[in-house]
């Protein structure tokens, strides 16, 4: 065994070795720490990389699903927007329908109006027709009106049958006959001829016929001879 002086020296020598060992271990720890940290990081990255495909797939799937939902949502919004845009058109259609209804009503009104007018016209025509059943002969300042369907029919037939042109212009006008209801038609009566005036203008000239003479004599007391 050592004496105490040598023992003390031994103690301090070993203490120095221990300190040196601790320092080297500390240096190693310090120098290893960045490597260890890098290793840990790289390992973590590597492990994540190993599991990356499924992770990425899952992420992509989730992203795709989210994107799909967004797209659907967007599509829904687009559809809703289209509906909103279509709304005015619908309103226009509604307005058009209303307008149609109004037009329909108007048409109906017009029809009814026309019916009414038609009825009126018919009534007027009927009245005119009824008027045609009378013939008025003016002679001088005198007026003679003939009524009755048969009489009017005979008078009208006689004048309608006029067909022969007449170029005679001798003699004065004995009088004229109007057909009320067709006031524009006026026959002026001469001894040898009948002139037709439409709207006050001479439109035709006919040779006097016996039928005209007969009806004039029969219904108007105008004797032109036979």
């Amino acid at each position, binding site marked *: 065994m050592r004496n105490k002086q040598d023992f*003390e020296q031994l103690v301090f020598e070993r*203490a120095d070795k221990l300190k040196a060992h601790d320092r080297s271990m500390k240096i190693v720890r310090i120098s290893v720490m960045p490597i260890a940290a890098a290793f840990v990081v790289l390992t973590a990255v590597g492990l994540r990389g190993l599991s990356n495909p499924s992770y990425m797939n899952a992420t992509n799937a989730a992203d795709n699903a989210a994107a799909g939902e967004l797209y659907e949502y967007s599509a829904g919004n687009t559809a809703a927007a289209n509906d909103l845009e279509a709304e005015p058109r619908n309103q226009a259609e509604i307005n058009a329908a209303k307008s149609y209804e109004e037009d329909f009503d108007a048409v109906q009104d017009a029809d009814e109006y026309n019916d009414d007018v038609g009825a009126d016209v018919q009534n007027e025509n009927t009245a005119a027709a009824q008027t045609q059943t009378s013939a008025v002969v003016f002679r001088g300042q005198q007026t003679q009106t003939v009524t009755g369907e048969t009489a009017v029919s005979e008078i009208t037939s006689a004048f309608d049958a006029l067909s022969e042109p007449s170029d005679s212009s001798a003699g004065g006008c004995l009088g004229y006959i109007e057909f009320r209801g067709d006031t524009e038609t006026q026959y002026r009566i001469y001894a040898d001829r009948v002139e037709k005036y439409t709207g006050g203008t001479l439109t035709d000239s006919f040779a006097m016929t016996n039928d005209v003479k007969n009806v004039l004599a029969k219904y108007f007391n105008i004797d032109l001879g036979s």
Partner: protein
Amino acid sequence: MIPAEEAFKKFLDGDKSAFSVIIDEFHDPLIFFIYGYVKNSDTAEDIAADCFAELVARPNRFSFRSTLKSYLFSMAHNKAVSHIRKHSRLTLLNDNSSLVADDDFAAIESSMVTDERSRRLHDALPKLKDNYRTALHLVYFEGMSYSEAAQAMGRSPKQIDNYVSRGKAALKKILEEEGFAYEE
């Protein structure tokens, strides 16, 4: 003599000579204690030197919450047990020769074993289980409290109480078998 803790504080403050006080106080007791494990004076001295060297090199490990004595004996216990584990095969092979103490250790032993009662106790201790032997050694030869012995062995005071009680019972039986009257 100044307390060991005060000497250690001086050493930490830069008074290198103060460590001599610590070595003087614990050199023999540590070697005597370690010898009980390793049964070799050179090895015991070597391990004791390691304990002191560690106190010098790593002073911050001693926190002053225990006595320096219990801290040093704790290191000695751990290092001795570790040495035995590492060299158990070699110890078994040299078992007979290791029981023979050299002259230097005999001097230490004589300084630690001062009376007949201590002699008989010291001779009987190697026959006890390790925990009983260590606990009895720390309590009777080092005069430690159960609490200090517990810190040195890394056990609870209650365990030390049990070790001492069972160790004394075993020691009584051994001494009675050898024809000695056991005294508490």
